[in-house]
């Protein structure tokens, strides 16, 4: 399903990434680092939507979106346009943010489960009404 507006114009640089080390530059000029389209293999909406969300939260990003060119193929194109910084760095920062978010989620969740298990069973009814 299409999400975001990926426009494949001549000038953006196309990076193709997959689980094997496979970096391919496709079109055009290398001068404009602010906008790029990243093409990832073996990915789908799971990662792409989360990355899009984290990218949007970054004030340096002017535009970001992703699309899946064809549903039969496992490929995602993520487009990033920034207000000045190179798009690769912004994407990397967003991914780092996402990782930290996940770690925080994991930590909070583990603590909540431990709290729940440590709680004496009598208190369960009170919390069930939440």
């Amino acid at each position, binding site marked *: 399903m299409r*999400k975001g507006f990926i426009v494949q114009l001549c000038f953006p640089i196309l990076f193709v990434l997959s689980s094997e080390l496979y970096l391919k530059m496709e079109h055009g000029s290398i001068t404009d680092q602010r906008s790029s389209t990243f093409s990832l293999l073996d990915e789908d909406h799971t990662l792409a*939507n989360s990355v899009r969300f984290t990218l949007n939260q970054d004030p340096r990003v002017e535009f970001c979106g992703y699309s899946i060119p064809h*549903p039969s193929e496992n490929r995602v194109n993520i487009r990033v346009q920034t207000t000045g910084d190179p798009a690769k760095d912004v994407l990397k920062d967003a991914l780092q943010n996402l990782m930290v978010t996940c770690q925080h989620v994991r930590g909070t969740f583990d603590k909540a489960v431990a709290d729940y298990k440590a709680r004496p069973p009598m208190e369960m009814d009170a919390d069930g009404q939440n």
Partner: protein
Amino acid sequence: MRKLRRSGKIGEFVSIFVNEKQRCVYVASDGGRVCRPLVIADRGISRVKEHHMKELMDGVRTFDDFLREGLIEYLDVNEENNALISLYEGEADTDTTHIEIEPFTILGVCAGLIPYPHHNQSPRNTYQLSRMDTLLYLLVYPQRPLLTTKSIELVGFDKLGAGQNATVAVMSYSGYDIEDAIVMNKSSLDRGFGRCIVLKKYSVVTEPYDRIVKPQMISSKSGYVVDSKMQILDADGIAAPGEIIRSHDLFVNKHSPKIIRDQAKPGELRETPTPVTYKGPEGETTVVDRVVLSTDVNNRLCIKFLVRHVRRPELGDKFSSRHGQKGVCGTIVQQEDFPFSERGICPDLIMNPHGYPSRMTIGKMIELLGGKAGVSSGRFHYGSAFGEPSGHADRVEAISETLVKHGFSYSGKDFIYSGITGYPLQAYIFMGPIYYQKLKHMVLDKMHARARGPRVTLTRQPTEGRSRDGGLRLGEMERDCLIAYGASMLIYERLMLSSDPYQVQVCRTCGLLGYYNYKLKTAVCSMCKNGDNVSTMKLPYACKLLFQELQSMNVVPRLKLTEA
């Protein structure tokens, strides 16, 4: 005369029909007319009383007693024109002559399988009945419909089951559901939804003096192996049941004697192998299910194989609900991409809502509501034809009340989250169980391609039919369309160059076909006995065949040639 019939003096299937316009009385007693039993009513009061029904339930009376005592009679088509029949006892007035025993008997057995047919546009019901004939061989996991009708229970269809109750969401999704296509859930298919078993029979008749030979071991690099074609043969040379059979595998390793008129030279094989090979789709796991050895009429050994193939639904397989809404599987989507409801349910099938407005199959919507209520409350709901007043069909209001009681919306529309973005969808989606049937037309049986292949001997044109690896016909009407476009070169290519081009030598003087003499390397005309005026041209072979057939009938088709 009708009194005579009602008292049993004349046969009960005799019909007496009064035609006012023609002022005559038709009495018909031939066989083959369709008759329906109806309760006789005297000025609107039914002759069948309470005590009759009680006696029927106790077993004292039978249906034939009712017939003989003049309470019920059979009416055929003509006599029904003279009768005023009321559907229910409550609606009868003084003019009524007959009362229906039960309104759903108006429709036959096949139509009785459709729930709420009285809410559908009538052609849709007719299409559904034709769909019933194209039903499938064997479903692996058949289910009985959630929304039954009285007819289904009477017939016993619920014990057989020809489809499955699929959770259907009526929404537009992915764009692959256009023109009645259906989007299916890959995880549902993994778990066995829509799987069917197709059984085919192959038989081999052995002529006398044929021998079935044990497969020979041939030595190869890794030791003694059997020839790859003979992998599945048992020690007796016949395929073993339970073996997976592939294309080009042999069923029977049979040898037939060569017809030798003279004495055979010593050392020469007296028999040729005439194996029976299996031709099937590549890459599919077909299994030999059963092998039967028997004899036919002429006491020849006859071996029959039952080959079984378990088919999983794929792109192109045809499905239909019970309301004439057929559709082909458009795409198969992962379960996590599918929308899910607040209770965590995600549909098995997504149907396009564009299939409803022009088709007007309201019965399908009511079936969804009834099925949803049935699943929540735990009892089967009924949808017999014209059954609302008598209780054989559940009213929509009652169904809605059940839905509300279980926390659903009265309209059957749920709040659904998108599986792709995670946000809720911006409309409430109509979702619930509908009984879906898998139809016989599966893409594996139909897929066919030909680039170049066998030709018919007579006309040298490509063969016809998928089994003969044939081509597709560009018929007369298609030819007319091409003519309308003025695409002459396209017609030339399609109808001659791709079909049966043939080079002929035509004599300019006599207009008849000549031949090409390879020794002299020139073309010669048989009539004129020389090769001076012969030119070559390309004709369809069928055309040349036509000329020669006409010639054989003493009609002379002469060709007049001009420069191209």
